[in-house]
């Protein structure tokens, strides 16, 4: 057993894989100008549509100097918007984790009737425009609906208040975690859980010690995406928030500032917050992808 692995290692040493791969690449690659045109045009596209706008945001944010930048970030309205965004995110993301774990566990590890329908239902938020989602909640909780009347009679405010912002955020971020977890759960199968069960573990122990550690990177990846979506949500929130200082989230606040014209650099200053979150998200996402790929590679050996 050790003999054969030593042997193959010896063969591996003698055979220069890197030179081999380079030779293959050389043999199958395009001509110089074709490569230059393709790579050059993609880089130019990236710069024009992604990098330039991002730089512009930061540039505009400091158009009135550092003092103006700080002033825009420290207004009461901005503070409120940050608070609102954080509330919505900190409620939506944990709920998504719980729901995502449960749903992906059921879908990934078991066969049952209606599984396809359940997956389609989970995907609904991907398919529907956020504006429609906002309108849907207005119809559901508005004063013209039975539910809305009942809520009004009992003095419970949902629409145009914090609960509605939280609800639409949960709705639009619904599929993110579960969509990341299903493929991982499916590929890992249920054998490790069965092994843990035979060894005497109860359900709780199996979850914490076998299931969760096996999906932790994919879960984190889903959480990062979910978080970015929760903080950036605009379309649905704009319908249920109705542009009030109390219920504006960061994207709504930026929009309001921008619409008011006289504010100058302020909307851009606030926008740098979201842009920074986006950049951090990208970095974390890339790191996680590397981590996930290396752990998948380990399983293949």
């Amino acid at each position: 057993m050790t003999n054969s692995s030593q042997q193959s290692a010896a063969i591996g040493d003698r055979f220069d894989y890197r030179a081999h791969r380079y030779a293959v690449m050389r043999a199958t690659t395009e001509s110089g100008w074709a490569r230059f045109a393709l790579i050059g045009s993609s880089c130019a596209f990236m710069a024009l549509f992604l990098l330039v706008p991002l730089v512009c945001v930061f540039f505009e944010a400091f158009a009135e100097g550092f003092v103006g930048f700080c002033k825009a970030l420290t207004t009461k309205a901005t503070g409120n918007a940050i608070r609102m965004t954080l509330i919505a995110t900190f409620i939506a993301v944990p709920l998504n984790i719980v729901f995502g774990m449960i749903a992906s566990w059921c879908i990934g590890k078991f066969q049952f009737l209606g599984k396809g329908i359940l997956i389609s239902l989970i995907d609904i938020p991907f398919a529907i425009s956020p504006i429609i989602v906002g309108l849907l909640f207005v119809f559901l909780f508005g004063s013209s609906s039975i539910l809305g009347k009942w809520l009004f009679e009992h003095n419970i405010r949902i629409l145009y208040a914090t609960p509605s912002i939280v609800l639409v955020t949960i709705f639009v971020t619904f599929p993110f975690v579960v969509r990341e977890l299903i493929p991982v759960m499916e590929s890992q199968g249920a054998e490790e859980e069965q092994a843990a069960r035979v060894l005497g573990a109860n359900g709780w122990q199996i979850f914490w010690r076998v299931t969760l550690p096996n999906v932790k990177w994919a879960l984190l990846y889903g959480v990062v995406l979910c978080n970015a979506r929760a903080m950036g949500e605009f379309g649905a929130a704009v319908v249920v928030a109705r542009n009030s200082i109390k219920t504006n989230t960061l994207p709504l606040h930026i929009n309001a500032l921008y619409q008011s014209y006289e504010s100058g650099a302020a909307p851009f200053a606030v926008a740098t917050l979201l842009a920074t979150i986006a950049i951090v998200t990208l970095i974390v996402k890339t790191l996680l992808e590397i981590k996930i790929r290396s752990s998948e590679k380990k399983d293949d050996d």
Partner: protein
Amino acid sequence: MGVEVRNITKSFGDFKALDDVSLRVEAGELVALLGPSGSGKTTLLRIIAGLETPDAGSGPVFFRGVRVDKQKVNERGVGFVFQHYALFRHMTVFDNIAFGMTVKPRKERLSKIEIREKVRALLHMIQLDNYAERYPSQLSGGQRQRVALARALAVEPHALLLDEPFGALDAKVRVELRTWLRRLHDEIHLTSVFVTHDQDEALELADRVAVMNSGKIEQVGTPDEVFHHPKTPFVMKFLGQVNQFRGRLESGRVWVGAHSGLASQCETGDKESITSINAGSVMVFVRPHDFDIAIQPRQERCSIPATVVRVRSAGNVVHVEMVTDTGDPLNVETSHQERDELKIEPGSHYFMIPRNLRIFPADTAGDYSNQVAGL
């Protein structure tokens, strides 16, 4: 008594994976469940472990005389080795082996030091002393297999159940590990059941073999019993190669073609003695190594005239492919010496005289179209 199941039936939809199966494994015994895929052997193993629930109306399952079929998997105290090992991929070898001990309720749990000692001892037993901190992905197939075994043994199970334990290994490692497992079993004497589709593995490793087919156990016996005295045509065909002929049973004689021998010289299955088989059509089975090759037919013996088609030398035996005068293929195994003495070569004609001949009533012998099974 180690493990006993009685009257187990299990269906998956319309498919009957197990049909009224009973099996008794004595304490300390190593039993193989041998059968082709779809014969229900893995399902039976999983039902013993508690990973599957038998159909309503099935009989009980006993471990050491205690009824366990109402107990859940995690309460039964079995060691189960999965076909693909199912090691916890994010845990080291040490943590894998320790897992069963660390999930015990606090009252029953050993101290950390005791657990460490025990894992060390198990690592020593599986000859992987220096691999405690490795991850499963850093091990070879044979090493993973042994870790899976150590993990199962760590909880001191009432019985050890192994699902195709050598199925995913290459031939050389498989044989090594088989010998090692047999030695280990002789040392620890733990009641063990393993599933395999490899007859060599079953015959070499097990104390007793249960041959399964289509959800039923066809025969349980020592390797010698099932190999040399198969009770059903299926067992005959599944364990090693066999030639199958149509024959006739008439007034105490067995006829194959134009020549006949005394029926009393034949062996039969367990359900019927030679006298109880009705006269008429029977199936005749002869293993390739159970032929005498003769120039002339012999008196009072079945003699099957056949012509040599091909001669293949394979190591220490010679395979002779023949065709009988009635057009059926016939496979014979002989020695190099006999081949040279008789000058066996394509085209020569002989009378093949079965030394060991087994007959079954024609209606139990199954598929006749396949004259030579096991090829």
